[in-house]
């Protein structure tokens, strides 16, 4: 039988067994946990290794791609290089071809050079021949010259004798005519002057509005004033586009009476009195010329033209050039120039050099009545701007005038000088009032045995260089005379021209006689 003690011991034993089993269980549990943890860890490790492997795979794939791209890139570069190489080969071929053609051309040049050398040689030979021929001709020339000189001298003597006879005859005629003035008609016929009387009465008809006065029936005489007046009158009647503008030209009949009678004849539509505003009315004149009219603008003296010089030079002279021929200015600026009697420093300057230095202007300076008529008519008809320099002291002087000059179509060429007196020892050039002085001086020189050739320039721009130089080449000496200031004057230009053209013909330096290099003195 089981006692409670046995039972309790069995229970205790069972308790101990169960405790020990519990302990074993726990130990097994912990072991199991441990194993489970280990298993988890190993699984995780496997997973990580798998990830690693996949990443490595991806990296290797990318690397493969990169290599492939590089390959492609290098292939394309190879293609480009191949193209360049082919191009360079082509250019090389072209250059080779050019080289051959250039070589041919060079050959041709060489051939041509050889030929021209031959031609040059032949020319040289011919020139030598010619120079020999020239030497021989020169010798002959010298011989003939000496022959003709002797005959020249005898000729000159004969001519002088004839001249003397002619002068005596002319003197006779002149005295006869002067006598006629003091003798009545009846007495004239009685003393045998019938021939002279007939010629006088034949010329009795009025040739001209302002008839030239006759002191000798051989030729008429006219003042410069009348010459200018008649010239303007005839040009105004010939061309309705010509009109006159200036101070006191109309009602006052002209400050120096040059435009006398024009207002009455042509009316206020053709002759305009202006206020004392040179800049204004000169500009208006030039503007009218732009539009096709032909103004004759009078300056009371050319000293006042300085107020309007901008219009003369910038608006008139330069227009044809600046517009390349579209706008021409057929205008004439006229008036007295240079010194008069006692008018003072501000009214006495000579402007010939100033205006003659401007391209585009034509500058004229008449001396005698014929010069005045011919040059003024030429100036009014000319399609370019003309500066017409008169001289106040010449207005009242009378000069002989030919029938031809009295004709209404008479015109002198612009740019041609006139040889007033022929000579062979020295050339004297001058213009305007100085021509009178120089002619008197030439007569005095002739008494001393020096024969002077006097040239009246007539045209300052364009200067007749041909005539001056031909005269200097004949006489080998030159004196230039003018009224204006010496520095940069007309004389300086003539001197320069002669030195450039005819230097080897000059026997002495050129002499200039000009106004003193001071402001004009009042009393002279």
């Amino acid at each position: 039988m089981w006692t409670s003690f046995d039972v309790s011991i069995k229970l205790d034993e069972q308790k101990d067994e169960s405790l020990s089993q519990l302990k074993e269980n726990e130990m097994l549990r912990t072991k199991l946990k441990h194993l489970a943890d280990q298993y988890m860890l190993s699984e995780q490790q496997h997973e990580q290794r798998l990830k690693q492997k996949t990443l490595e795979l991806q990296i290797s794939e990318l690397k493969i791609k990169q290599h492939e791209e590089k390959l492609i890139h290098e292939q394309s570069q190879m293609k480009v290089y191949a193209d360049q190489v082919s191009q360079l080969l082509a250019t090389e071929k072209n250059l080779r071809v050019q080289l051959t053609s250039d070589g041919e051309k060079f050959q041709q040049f060489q051939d041509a050079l050889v030929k021209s050398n031959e031609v040059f040689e032949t020319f040289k030979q011919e020139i030598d021949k010619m120079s020999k021929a020239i030497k021989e001709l020169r010798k002959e020339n010298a011989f003939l010259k000496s022959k003709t000189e002797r005959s020249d001298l005898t000729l000159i003597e004969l001519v002088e004798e004839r001249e003397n006879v002619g002068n005596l005859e002319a003197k006779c005629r002149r005295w006869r005519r002067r006598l006629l003035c003091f003798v009545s008609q009846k007495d004239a016929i009685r003393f045998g002057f019938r021939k002279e009387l007939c010629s006088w009465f034949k010329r009795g008809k009025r040739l001209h509005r302002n008839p030239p006065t006759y002191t000798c029936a051989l030729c008429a005489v006219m003042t410069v004033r009348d010459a200018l007046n008649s010239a303007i009158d005839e040009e105004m009647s010939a061309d309705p586009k010509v009109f006159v503008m200036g101070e006191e030209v109309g009602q006052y009949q002209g400050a120096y009476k040059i435009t006398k009678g024009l207002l009455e004849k042509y009316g206020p539509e053709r002759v305009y009195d202006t206020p004392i505003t040179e800049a204004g009315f000169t500009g208006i004149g030039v503007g009218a010329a732009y539009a096709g009219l032909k103004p004759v603008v009078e300056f009371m003296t050319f000293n006042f033209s300085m107020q309007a010089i901008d219009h003369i030079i910038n608006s008139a002279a330069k227009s044809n050039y600046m517009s390349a021929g579209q706008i021409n200015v057929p205008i004439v600026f006229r008036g007295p120039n240079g010194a008069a009697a006692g008018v003072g420093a501000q009214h006495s300057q000579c402007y010939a050099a100033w205006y003659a230095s401007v391209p585009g202007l034509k500058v004229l300076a008449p001396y005698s009545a014929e010069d005045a008529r011919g040059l003024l008519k030429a100036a009014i008809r000319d399609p370019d701007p003309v500066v017409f320099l008169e001289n106040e002291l010449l207005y009242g002087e009378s000069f002989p005038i030919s029938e031809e000059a009295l004709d209404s179509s008479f015109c002198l060429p612009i740019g041609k000088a006139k040889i007033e007196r022929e000579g062979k020892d020295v050339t004297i050039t001058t213009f305007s009032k100085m021509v009178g002085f120089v002619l008197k001086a030439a007569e005095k020189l002739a008494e001393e045995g020096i024969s002077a050739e006097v040239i009246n320039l007539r045209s300052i721009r364009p200067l007749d260089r041909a005539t001056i130089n031909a005269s200097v080449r004949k006489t080998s000496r030159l004196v230039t005379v003018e009224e204006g200031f010496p520095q940069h004057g007309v004389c300086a230009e003539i001197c320069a021209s002669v030195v450039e053209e005819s230097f080897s013909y000059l026997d002495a330096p050129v002499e200039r006689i000009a106004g003193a290099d001071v402001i004009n003195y009042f009393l002279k």
Partner: protein
Amino acid sequence: MALSRLSSRSKGISRPLSAAFSRSISTDTTPITIETSLPFTAHLCDPPSRSVESSTQELLSFFRTMALMRRMEIAADSLYKAKLIRGFCHLYDGQEAVAIGMEAAITKKDAIITAYRDHCIFLGRGGSLYEVFAELMGRQDGCSKGKGGSMHFYKKDSSFYGGHGIVGAQVPLGCGIAFAQKYSKEEAVTFAMYGDGAANQGQLFEALNISALWDLPSILVCENNHYGMGTAEWRAAKSPSYYKRGDYVPGLKVDGMDAFAVKQACKFAKEHALKNGPIILEMDTYRYHGHSMSDPGSTYRTRDEISGVRQERDPIERIKKLVLSHDLATEKELKDMEKEIRKEVDDAIAKAKDCPMPEPSELFTNVYVKGFGTECVLCSVQGPLCEF
């Protein structure tokens, strides 16, 4: 104004939209009446009315020609900076309304003479872009064969007498042309244009005195852009009312940025001059560039002033607004027109660049009309002198 809107709108309904732009330029002469922006101020005469008769064709042609002038001047600016144009270059942009308005009021028998700011006046008188650019660049196909330059454009067959460099000299010359017109009994007038700087010149008053004495049909137009080179008008003139300076000669002050006001004033002046003698017109205008290309234009005036005028008074903008408000063209069509103009100007410049310079022998031609040419003074020792 309302009446005009009605008429233009009715016209707008009748024409197909696609062909609106091209047709309006060529054939449309529907009359429009436009009010000037400011009233006229008169001296010794009755001012003309503010309503100006015009037509759609005229309005569009104003826009086109003014845009062309503006483009031409700006192109000249860039050519100058590129050193293709040398010497002087005086630009007219900002003052186009004066040139256009004047042309619209007169015929080619009426003469115009101006100072050196003459590119746009030449264009208005019938000159071509090619001639302008060739002359500016000194080429032989220029209007003065390359011998004149920027300041000496001439077109005698359209009675445009230049193009003068000496300030104020053109006014007596203009009175002289008017004298010739009266002498030859042509029923024409001369517009002698000058600036506020030249308005103080003595020869101007001398010429005005003679014009008034002899009743010459001369119209003196003062383009008052308020600056004589760098001097503002208040520093140069004791009395800046240039329209009153004629004293006994009537005058009219006009808003020079409004092409229609200019047109009305010129028409009025022409009628007046043919009957009563000279009249002075003062055009209140403005130039955006400096006096010439060597003047920046900002040392004597502020940039605000320049941009202010450009915003408020620009003549082309005014015409543009009128065109748009009268429904004559859309914004896009005007922009296309401006592009076309730009291309036209560029083509003219390219053609002018290709033109050769004048021959060296041209240096010696045209000095005189008749004979003599140039005397060659520095000639050889042996030969006689050579004359061309």
